């Protein structure tokens, strides 16, 4: 049972990571910085609970705000460039964050042992959940409360004018400007919301793994972050969730029995999915069909 709870936690956290990139991708900006914000959230939340004895919820919220703040600061210079240059700039930021934590020591004595981040060794003993007697099931539930709240928030945002504004900028910047939209403000806002969600996701991740290190937040994670919403489709938040379940649940876990062949098939299936559904698994047409089915039934 614990295996499944673990998988459910993982899917939840990766959904948050994917949703953080979803918001930015709506404005048609490809960001490789999400793993960086995720890492910042992880370290901030873990340091708050372990070193400063914070309770879990405030620690995670502060991690979210830390992610948002950094994303806002990074957004201003980074979003002046477009396309491939933005990919390179955000990639550089992600590596900067990773290397920062590679060299970051801040340990204090707690009873017999030293706790806190220790450079390349990482940050061990993030034991908030076990210390407070949470079971794996409790943690899974906790993760999904956040996932559901954030998905609901983004679902509402998509239906408000903000969603239309983000998509308008993503579709045609020149036209968006001509209807009075401030491109910088819109893009930086999207980046900030994305940073907040990534920070929350990171904060939760640090606590259920109990051990984080810089290599967790590498380019591969940044690639996953944008792969989820792109594969799932940008028509609504459920596409991202579907893609995370597809990749983490079916491809990574479900194909484990295939041994080394798994990685080969993994890549092939993603290529196949993108060919069959170029606008994502849940594209506009799929949503129309679903809507019709539900309104009839």
């Amino acid at each position, binding site marked *: 049972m614990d295996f499944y709870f673990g998988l459910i936690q993982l899917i939840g956290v990766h959904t948050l990571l994917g949703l953080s990139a979803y918001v930015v991708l709506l404005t048609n900006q490809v960001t490789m910085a999400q793993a960086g914000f995720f890492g910042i959230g992880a370290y901030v939340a873990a340091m708050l609970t372990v070193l400063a004895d914070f309770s879990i919820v405030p620690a995670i919220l502060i991690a979210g705000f830390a992610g948002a703040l950094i994303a806002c600061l990074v957004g201003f210079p980074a979003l002046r460039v477009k396309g491939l240059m933005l990919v390179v700039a955000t990639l550089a930021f992600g590596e900067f964050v990773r290397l920062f934590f590679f060299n970051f020591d801040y340990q204090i004595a707690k009873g017999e042992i030293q706790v806190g981040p220790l450079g390349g060794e990482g940050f061990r003993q993030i034991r908030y959940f076990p210390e407070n007697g949470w079971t794996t099931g409790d943690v899974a539930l906790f993760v999904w409360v956040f996932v559901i709240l954030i998905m609901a928030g983004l679902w509402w945002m998509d239906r*408000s*004018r*903000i969603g*239309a*504004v983000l*998509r*308008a900028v993503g*579709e*045609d910047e*020149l*036209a*968006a*400007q*001509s*209807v*009075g*939209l*401030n*491109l910088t403000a819109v893009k930086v806002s999207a980046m900030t919301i994305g940073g907040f969600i990534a920070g929350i996701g990171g904060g939760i991740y640090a606590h259920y793994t109990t051990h984080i290190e810089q290599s967790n937040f590498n380019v591969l994670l940044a690639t996953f972050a944008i792969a989820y919403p792109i594969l799932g489709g940008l028509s609504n938040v459920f596409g991202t969730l579907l893609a995370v379940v597809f990749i983490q649940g079916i491809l990574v876990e479900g194909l484990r029995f295939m041994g080394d062949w798994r990685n080969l098939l993994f890549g092939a299936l993603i290529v196949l999915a993108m060919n069959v559904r170029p606008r994502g698994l849940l594209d*506009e047409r799929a949503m129309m069909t679903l809507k019709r089915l539900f309104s009839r039934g």
Partner: protein
Amino acid sequence: MAENGAILQLKGLSKNFGGVQAVDMLDLDVPQGRIFGLIGPNGSGKSTTVNLICGVFPVSAGNVVFGGRDITGLAPHSRLTIGVARTFQNIRLFNHLTVWQNLWVAQNGEDDKAGQNFIRRWVSGPGSARQQVEEMLDFSGLAHRRDDLAGNLAFGEQRRLELARALAARPQMLLLDEPAAGMNMEEVGQLRDRLMKLRETGMTILLVEHVMELVMGVTDHIAVLNFGKKIAEGTPTEIQNDPLVREAYLGTA
């Protein structure tokens, strides 16, 4: 407002693209409440002029003055808030948004009280937004297609939607870049009626156009560009009889 009643003034406006002089020392006074035609052969700098007025790219020299205020260095999105709206030569709608959403994002009215409006303008647009969208749907005759994606509209409908989108923010002045391109004669006639209706409401319009039936039919005043320079200015009748204009369009005999 300038003394001569011009709402838009271009003073020595110039733009060169790497040695090509697209617009060359252009002076233009567009009077308020009139339809002002800007014509000229292909490549004469008409679209560039529109783009300079909208701030799509910076000017090389000269000034753009709107309502007595120098807006030469103003950010493009701010020009809409002070009252300059435009359409594009190649229709640029938000194709994956619905007709309704296209009009909704274009709501930038400043009619809410300061302070309370920041969040609300983001979330739902200004207080009058929904009503304004409805008015625009009626004006453009697209009420029945409100929930369709803009990209799925027919060509003529897309042109109408783009015009409605420009009007949605209640501008004082409209810049129309070849609004009749690709239209049949019936559609051109409808467009003419729409422009006349707008003129009655006091809207100032700068009309860049190749379709002479439209230009000669609706404009009060016309300026002719050739190689970025103004070669003639006057009423439609004066322009039609101007030898320089004939030469620019037809070449020397």
